[in-house]
Structures are given as C-alpha cells and as structure tokens.
C-alpha cells in the first residue's frame, strides 16, 4: 500500500520535472559553444527572436508552419531580448505559436554585449536574425525577417550533400 502511494506520487510529480526540461534553457556566457557542440555535424537553423520585437512575433507562426512542412529541419529558437524576459512568458509565446516543443533558449544575462559577441562579434543586436549552420559549421546569416524560400533552398542543398 505504502509502495503504491510512493509510486503514485512519483508518477504524479514526473510530468512536473519534464515540464522544466521543456522551458527555454537559460542562455548565458558559454551557452553558444554548448549549443554549437550539441548540433555539431548536423545542418541546424538557429532563429534569433525576441518577445520585445514586434516583427519577430509576426514571423514566428511562419517558422511553426515551416517546421511542420520540413521534418528534416533542425530548428533552435533563441530569444535574444536585450533585457532578459521571464522564461515563462517566452514559453507561453512559443506554445501559443505552436513552437512549444522546439528546442528553445532565452537570454538570461543582462550583459548582452557578451552574449552577442559569442554568437557573432558583428551582430549589433537587431532582431529577427536567422543563422543557418551547415555540417562543416559554416554560418549563413539572414538579417531581418527571413525569406523562407531561401531557407527551404538551403535545407534542400543540405539534404543533397
């Protein structure tokens, strides 16, 4: 009886733990290297957006559509607001947009100069921004709202290689 109670409790608490794993991961100093290492050798698209960036919020649903259309796309979302936003609000926005299950990170350090420098020293912080990273680690940057035709063409090229 006691064991059953423990098991029931464990089962009840398990989803709570998993919910944490789905939150945006805090993007801190050194996170960029970890993110890159985790996807090394795999064509990956890192989309930089922000809760405080109106055009980003308009664009997000397009990424949700593309993700459904292209299961071959490894997509990582990074909320790069200059003033860090509450992770719960980042997650809420992504879930509402249909991107709740996509790997997601969120700037968690007010020293955003440092975070931006690690990603790209020449990036002055403008959003949205999309980084397409091929198998060899070569980065193709799309500044502003991404032309999805260009993204699809890039994905097609990766599939052929």
């Amino acid at each position, binding site marked *: 009886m006691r064991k059953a109670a423990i098991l029931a*409790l*464990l089962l009840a608490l398990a989803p709570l733990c998993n919910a944490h794993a789905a939150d945006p991961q805090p993007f801190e100093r050194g996170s960029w290297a970890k993110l890159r290492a985790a996807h090394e050798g795999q064509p990956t698209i890192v989309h930089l957006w922000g809760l405080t960036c109106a055009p*980003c919020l308009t664009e997000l649903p397009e990424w949700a559509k593309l993700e459904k259309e292209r299961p071959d796309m490894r997509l990582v979302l990074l909320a790069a607001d*200059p003033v*860090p936003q509450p992770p719960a609000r980042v997650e809420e926005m992504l879930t509402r947009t249909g991107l709740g299950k996509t790997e997601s990170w969120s700037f968690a350090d007010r020293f955003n100069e440092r975070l*931006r420098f690690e990603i790209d020293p020449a990036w002055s912080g403008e959003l949205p921004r999309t980084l397409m990273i091929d198998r060899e680690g070569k980065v193709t940057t799309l500044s502003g709202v991404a032309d999805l035709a260009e993204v699809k063409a890039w994905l097609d090229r990766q599939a052929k290689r």
Partner: protein
Amino acid sequence: MRLFFTLLATLMLAGTAAAQHHNHGKPSAAPEAFTATPAFGPDGTLWLVRATADKIVVVKSTDLGKTFSEPVAVTPEPMNLDWGPDARARIAVDPKGGLIVTFAIFQDKNFNGRAFFARSKDNGASFTPPRPITADKTSQRFETVAVDPSSGRVFATWLDKRNGAKARASGRAYPGAALAYAWEDGDASFGKTEIALDNTCECCRLGVAFAGPGRPAIVFRNIFPGSVRDHAVVTFKDATTPGPLRRVSADDWKIEACPHHGPTIAIAPDGSYHVAWFTDAPSRKGLFYARADNGNVPFGAPRALSSPNRQPARPYLLSDGQALHLVWKEFDGTKSVVRWQVSRDSGRQWTEARTIAETSDASDHPLLVAYGGHAYLSWLTKIEGYRLIPLENQP
C-alpha cells in the same frame, strides 16, 4: 515511510534546483530598468535620478559623486516602469534650483507607455506626486526634458502614439510614432501637447539641445520612405513653430523593426550642430559623427567612430562651453569600455579615442555632464556601481 520522505525530498530538491537554475541572471523576475541620469544644479550639487525595479529615487552629491545623500522617493507607489533599453528616467534643474524628474511606465504588455513628471521646490527634500505630461492616454515613451538656458522654461518632447491610433481607427496605415512636445506652463503642469512631426521611429531615445532662446533642436530616428530609419534634426523657429526636417545622413538603413538605438546632439556656442548615431545599413555600419556649421546648412560627411565588430553603441555628445566631448561604449571581447574624444575647434578635429572607463558586466549608457567648465563621464555599471569620472585636459 522513511523512503517515502527521502524520495519526496529528493524530488523537491531537484525541482528547486531546476527553478534556481532558471532564476540565474534573474530572467524569471520582471525585467528591470537599470539607469542613473545626472544633472548639476546651479550651486554645483550633482543630482542623480535612479530607476530600479518598480521605483524612481533621487540622490544628491555635494562632493562630485564621492558620497551621496539618502534616496528620496519620486514614485510614492510601486509602478511598472519602462525598462526598454533606450528608456531612462531623467532629471533637469532650472536656474532657480527647482528640480524636474520625468519617467515613463508601461501601461500594458504591448509596451504602450505613459510619461510622468514630478517637481521639487524644496531642494530635493520631497517631490510632488507624479503627474502625466499629457492628457492623452494612448502611449508616450522616451520623454526628454531640457531647460531653456535663456528663460529657465522647461521643454518636454516624447514619442507619442495618438495619431497612429486615430489613423488605424479610420483604416489608414501609420508607421511609427509622432514627435510630440509641450512647454511647461508654470510649475504645476505642461501646456498643450503639439505634434511636431508624424511617422518617426517608435523606440529610440531622443536628443535635445538649444539653438537659441525658445528654440529647441531635437534629433531623432525618423522613418523615411521605404521604412528607411535614418536620423534627422528639427530646429524650432520659435517656441511653437517646428522648423523643417534636416536629414543628418543618408545611411539608407531599411529595417522593419525598431533598433532601440537613439542619437545624441550638441550645439556649440558658435552655433554649430554635432550629432552622433548608430546605424546598421549595408553600406554603413556602426557609430558615426557629423557636424554642420549652423542650423541651416546640410550636415557634413559622416565619420566612423569605431570598428563595427566592436559593437560600438550609445554615443553621447556634450558642449561644455569650451570643448566638445564625445563618448560611446564598445565591447572588446570581455569588457565594455567607454571611449572618449574631445574637440576644441568646433568638431573639425578630434583627439585620438581613449578608453576612460571599463567594466566586465552589464552597464547603463555612458552619459556626459558639465559644471563650471569641467566635463564628467557619468556611468552606472553592475559591478562598480555609479561613477562620476572627470575628463581631464589632454595635451
């Protein structure tokens, strides 16, 4: 039963650890303003307005920033302060030593703002309850006050969304915001709000300087046709007549977003205009400076202040009566540094840029302030706190 509690404790600890991990860098707390803005009083007192969490306070220093008084609250109740990266509470001192503080709050999750002001007539011992700068409630942000040196009258300008709301209600497109202004009407309120210009960029700070008695000059990021967000100056012909728009530079930065990166202006005693700004156009990236001999001629060729891969940002210009000072922030890979240049010939020639302060964590914009012919860097950083750094003469 012991096993039960052990398991429960382990689970709870794991949950707490995960929550703490997420709290690192305070991202789960509400975003906060992190600014300190200075102004010197006529007696050499340094006044500083600080925005932290949900309140605005004023402190003063009579020893050039070495020690400060206990903070005096400007906001009696907690308020949802505008924490935008280009927003700040400001303070100005009139010639009689009266203080005026301005700041904005967010009214909603869509970053609609409301701009307030508060006055002190008792040398900063207390402030009047904050009152809105304008009656319209649509949205005001980036409120900036400046005291007309000739009359002591306070001029306020801000970015206002009222015309955008009206246009959308009648089915018309309205990019950006409007440049609004009002003059203080006595000490208790601002007079009628006027719109100087429609369709400016909506989330970049403004710069104000005086071209003559009753004649403010405002620099701002405008929206030129095709969503080109370059800079312009409007100089008033008289207190209620904004002059024509004068473009500072044709960078042709076409962007459908807001850069959160506003300009700075100074007008020297010889009437020359000096502007510095940030752009990320394909052909011109980074920080730039340009000058014009007076208010009626075009600005000269832009001069780059830094390399674009050093994240040059947040320029600030000041004329202290004898010299022009220019500072900005750069990032060197580990530290943010403040670079400084000075010109003693109306901005034609400048000294080599020199690093005058640095920090290895988050920081506010570098600002300049002058008293008695001496200019100072005013900089709030997370590690070092607030610093007032004298800009010594260079050989």
